[in-house]
């Protein structure tokens, strides 16, 4: 395999792994439900994106065609992540989950 492709794959995997780890740390460290919602839905967007790109490079250098499936995975992920985040936020607002003291503004209930 082309060494430059290998460097690129390594770099992208490291970036992806680092962002996924930061997302997990955020899930553990952030103070309340709404802020925790940001960790996994966000840092992982770039995390999964970088891992998928490295997979595309790997399989296209192996000569097995360009990985359109991986791009579709990204597309589906980008379409479904906001919906699940929205559902979680709505459920939390309905249950009147507590927010941290330094949080400004109020969730509404309708």
């Amino acid at each position: 395999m082309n060494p430059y492709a290998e460097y690129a794959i390594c770099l992208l995997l490291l970036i992806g792994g680092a962002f996924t780890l930061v997302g997990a740390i955020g899930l553990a460290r952030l103070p309340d439900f709404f802020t925790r919602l940001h960790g996994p839905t966000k840092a992982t967007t770039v995390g999964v994106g970088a891992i998928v790109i490295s997979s595309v490079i790997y399989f296209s250098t192996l000569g097995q065609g360009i990985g359109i499936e991986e791009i579709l995975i990204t597309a589906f992920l980008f379409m479904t992540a906001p919906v699940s985040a929205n559902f979680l936020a709505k459920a939390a607002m309905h249950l009147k989950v507590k927010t941290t003291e330094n949080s400004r503004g109020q969730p509404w209930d309708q």
Partner: protein
Amino acid sequence: MLDRLSFPQPWLSLTLFITWQFLSDGVSGGSVVLGIILAWGIPQMTQGFWPDPPAFIKAWRMPAYLARVIRDIVVASFEVARLILSPRPARPAFICYPLELEHPLAITILASTISLTPGTVSADVSDDNKLLLIHALDAEDDQEVIDTIRARYEKPLLEMFQ
């Protein structure tokens, strides 16, 4: 009876057909037949959920918008990562965003964009489609967040949908 055999949403059908060809391993007779069945069946089944035919006129502006969103996702990811790892506590806030967009599909795209860009999640839309409730992870000033979203995402969407 005849409208049961039609394609109520040709663009959705075309997208579904092409997506199915990519998902199945290479284009073959079987994948084409199943693709046509899916392209016919899914729009028929979901027809009741679509509000009205989207007035999606300026589709050629979409790639530039997507490029901007992807760039913002990468930049904001680094900011959120720095915030998570720094000892400073976050300053979360609920922000009411007054919507200028009116079409439900446009509001959906804006809300999804806000949720995808790190640091903000769209939590709810008011019943009259006039307000969007946003939860920001670290906002110093509500007006600043509103202005950024207005300039970067809502203005291009307004141009696309009107």
